[in-house]
């Protein structure tokens, strides 16, 4: 016999809370999102394909994916160092520094956008230094990468921190007492233990960067074929009342972020299974 839908419980309110949850979720999220796919379905394959493979759109994918990947990689390296320092070492002002890491979550994206643009523009605080070295940051793909690094940072740090805190120092001690050097301990004991968390943080930062709009539009300069990100193309299609075109590009982005979400779940699922298998 099939198991019952719900196991018996003395606690009241199951029907009401689950009913409301499903109702609200459907009304606000599921129905609107399905509108996106239904709209695409009315387009026909060939017109969908010609929209999403238009050279200008393809150029925007390249920029969006490339800059997101670069930002996520920078965060994987520096986020690792930040998380390690914040968990393992103590230094004056550490609590404050730790609290600061969440700033990109808390700061509205439009504010970070104009602030970064001002700093990295030709006569900005950092921009003037880069300029004297012959590097243009604002209104170039480099600027897009900088903005996407900014917004992705907390994902890597906050995913790694609990994992580093959970590392049992006994394994490191055991490895060291068996004659492993610090580098060897890091590569063979510490790093493999942190890899699932690092990958998860990297993927979260990457996924967030793909869809990011507010912090990028100001610093990117929005030049077609060069510094135009995919979310901006959706908006410009909408402004020309090209709903079908906007929807087609949105579906491509949505599928990409769902794929990353699945990958994250797969990483975590494998990790949990490994831990349970070991225990």
């Amino acid at each position, binding site marked *: 016999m099939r*198991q019952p839908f*719900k*196991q018996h419980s*003395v*606690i009241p*309110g*199951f029907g009401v*809370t*689950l009913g*409301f*949850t499903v109702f*609200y979720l459907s009304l*606000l*999220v599921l129905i609107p*999102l399905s*509108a996106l796919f239904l709209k695409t379905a009315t387009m026909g394959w060939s017109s969908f394909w010609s929209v999403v493979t238009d050279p200008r759109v393809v150029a925007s994918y390249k920029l969006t994916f490339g800059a997101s990947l670069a930002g996520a990689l920078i965060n994987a390296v520096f986020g690792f160092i*930040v998380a390690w*320092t*914040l*968990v*393992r*070492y*103590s230094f004056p002002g550490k*609590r404050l520094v*730790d609290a*600061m*890491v*969440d*700033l990109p979550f*808390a*700061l*509205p*994206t*439009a*504010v970070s*956008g*104009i*602030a970064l643009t001002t*700093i990295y523009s030709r006569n900005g*605080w950092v921009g003037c230094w880069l300029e004297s070295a012959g590097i243009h940051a604002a209104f170039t793909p480099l600027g897009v990468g900088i903005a996407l*690094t900014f917004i992705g*940072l*907390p994902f890597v740090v*906050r995913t790694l921190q609990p994992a580093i*805190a959970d*590392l049992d*120092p006994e394994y490191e001690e055991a490895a*060291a007492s068996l004659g492993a050097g*610090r580098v060897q301990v890091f590569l063979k004991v510490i790093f493999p233990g942190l890899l699932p968390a690092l990958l998860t943080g990297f993927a979260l930062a990457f996924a967030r960067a793909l*869809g*990011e709009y*507010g912090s990028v539009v*100001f610093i990117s300069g929005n030049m077609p074929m060069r510094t135009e990100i995919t*979310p901006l193309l*959706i*908006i410009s299609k*909408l402004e020309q*009342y090209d709903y079908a075109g906007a929807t087609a590009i949105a579906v491509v*982005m949505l599928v990409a*972020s769902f794929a990353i979400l699945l990958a994250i779940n797969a990483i975590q699922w494998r990790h949990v299974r490994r831990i349970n298998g070991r225990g």
Partner: protein
Amino acid sequence: MSGASRMSLSPATTPGAARDPLWLRVLLIAVTLLFLGLFLLLPLVSVFYEALRGGVRLYLASLVDSDALTAVRLTLLTAVIAVPCNLVFGLAAAWALAKFEFRGKAVLITLIDLPFAVSPVVSGLVFVLLFGAGGWFGPWLTAHHLHIIFAVPGIVLATMFVTFPFVARELIPLMQEQGSEEEQAALVLGAGGWSTFWRVTLPNIKWALLYGVILCNARAMGEFGAVSVVSGHIRGRTNTMPLHVEILYNEYNFQAAFAVASLLALLALVTLAAKELVEWRARVDMRSAAGTAAGEEK
């Protein structure tokens, strides 16, 4: 996103620190401070610097500008509607998911997280597809002279969509961890459903709930991409604060743009401070609970 940052105790320095040589510790701390200083502190400082550059009088004048005040009012209105709706949803979802075992639970949890995976621009777009002039309900709305897109209801809907998971995300893992033994005890002793919720469940989850509301509010007030798509940017009518910042900035009125932005940056700082406070309170509660438990055992 916030799942990882949720209520983690800041761990004490482990003995492992002793094994990293001093030069490495100094180097890594220096890299951390430099990187965070460059990427986080500098943008924050620049907002206030640019806002106050023209003097305090000019700063205040940009804030009491009538368009700026309308934007502040609309932002507050949006948050006042969106946050309570998502608060009620978060409580209901967490109750259903944490206190009961039923089929399809994992799917439901994944679906609740969906808005986090959707680009803000796409979040706005879906409402244009539903309620815009060429959308499903567009003709009907036009016939009845109702405006959702390029009007306040659209802004509220888009904000509700992007802030949808925040409260639920904070509550579900915590309530799952706490289980339902205390509630069962209260019910067996004769308490009603509501009084069990108010007297047993709510005190146990209040800090996580507050934190979820703070995060939800910060995002509701600061959302840019989704709101930008549905608002139509009608100055003095459908401009929230982030959109007003954009308009001023694109008009090269940098000082005024940064003045309004500084209010949003203050909101972000208050959010971060509130987060620290809530985590600290949760730790104190946990410690005192552990203390009573230890006392009872003696």
